[in-house]
């Protein structure tokens, strides 16, 4: 039974299984801890968190001001922060200026706000080109900016994490922060997309 099960596993699966067995046998790790870590990032820690921060900033000028002055504290006040978000900065997109975040050296990303980075963010095409030719990267995402819009790229080379505040879509006057959060996509908080327009969202 075991032999049969093993024969169906790939080399990498066998390697990982062996590694976990040794680490557990030697008492370095608890497999239930691995489950808990995975569960946190599959169910609780994801872009919905960042969307709440952005929506609050759109709906509440005082909060937006706090974010500009001390983003880490303002974000902590909403219950987000910690690992890979110990020092967070926000950058705001406008008609005149578009911000884009990358980590050319590895995969630095604001985990507490956006969860774990998608494969493209960690990929060679994105990491190589974002700092040199960001407009062509945006084209890959179907995003086109006016030629006059300045582009500011932030290469996360240290333990500072960046959250982009996208432009608030038109036609959302008077919306609550909860409603606005539905418009905030992951990509809009990295700078590879815009927030959704009201007509692009179907509310439950």
């Amino acid at each position, binding site marked *: 039974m075991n032999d049969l099960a093993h024969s169906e596993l790939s080399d990498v699966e066998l390697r990982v299984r062996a590694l976990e067995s040794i680490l557990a046998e030697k008492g370095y790790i608890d497999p239930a801890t691995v489950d808990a870590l995975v569960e946190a990032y599959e169910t609780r820690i994801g872009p919905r968190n960042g969307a709440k921060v952005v929506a609050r900033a759109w709906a509440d000028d005082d909060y937006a001001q706090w974010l500009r002055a001390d983003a880490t504290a303002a974000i902590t006040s909403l219950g987000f922060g910690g690992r890979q978000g110990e020092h967070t*900065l926000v950058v705001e997109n406008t008609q005149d200026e578009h911000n884009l975040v990358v980590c050319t050296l590895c995969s630095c990303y604001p985990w507490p706000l956006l969860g774990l980075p998608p494969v493209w963010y960690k990929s060679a095409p994105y990491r190589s080109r974002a700092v040199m030719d960001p407009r062509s990267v945006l084209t890959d995402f179907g995003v086109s900016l006016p030629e006059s819009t300045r582009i500011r790229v932030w290469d996360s080379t*240290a333990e500072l994490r960046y959250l982009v505040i996208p432009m608030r879509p038109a036609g959302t006057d008077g919306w609550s922060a909860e409603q606005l959060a539905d418009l905030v996509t992951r990509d809009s908080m990295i700078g590879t997309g815009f927030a959704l327009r009201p007509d692009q969202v179907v509310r439950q």
Partner: protein
Amino acid sequence: MNGVHDMGGMMNFGPVEEEADEPAFHADWERRVFGLTLAASATGAFNIDMGRRARESIPPAEYLSSTYYEIWLAGLEKLLLETGLVSDDELASGTARMPAAPIKRVLKPQMVPSMLAVGSDSERPAETPVRFAAGDRVVTRNMHPMGHTRLPRYARGKRGVIEQVHGAHIFPDLNAHGLGEAPQRLYTVRFTGAELWGEDADPTLTTSIDAWESYLEPG
């Protein structure tokens, strides 16, 4: 190290391809590698900079042909071997053959939420007076260390402007090699596209890095 991980400005990797409704993990083994890496880090046997150094030291051809979590797996195995927590023999056999090495702690499942919420702060009290102020012109060092660094190749020997002054943070170039935290002041330095990429660069582009003080000289 001038490794292939240092990708800024390289060409010919093709388009950026986004996956619709991408899951956090694409296979169960990726889940385990992610969780094992965080749990093993919690033993205190190695730090985040050592983790990055281990992944970067994978030979270029192997690095480029590996998936992200394959790189994490190779990096974790390397760290466990370096720190003596496991042996080659054990990795090959999947069974413990030596007594366990002493570690600082074992992360228990109930500690996970608070561990994630607290994180691990890289900021330290500043040991020296601040050298640069916002608006100062600086030039980055032209250096090519064999060891770990967070100064990307495309931003070496370049003139920029200090945009923000941050606190002192653990210096990865030393911490990655177990040589101590040696905190240094951190700055956000902005460069024009033309400075980094020449006269054909997008005239609307500026790019910043976060640079430790010893990466910078007055410019």
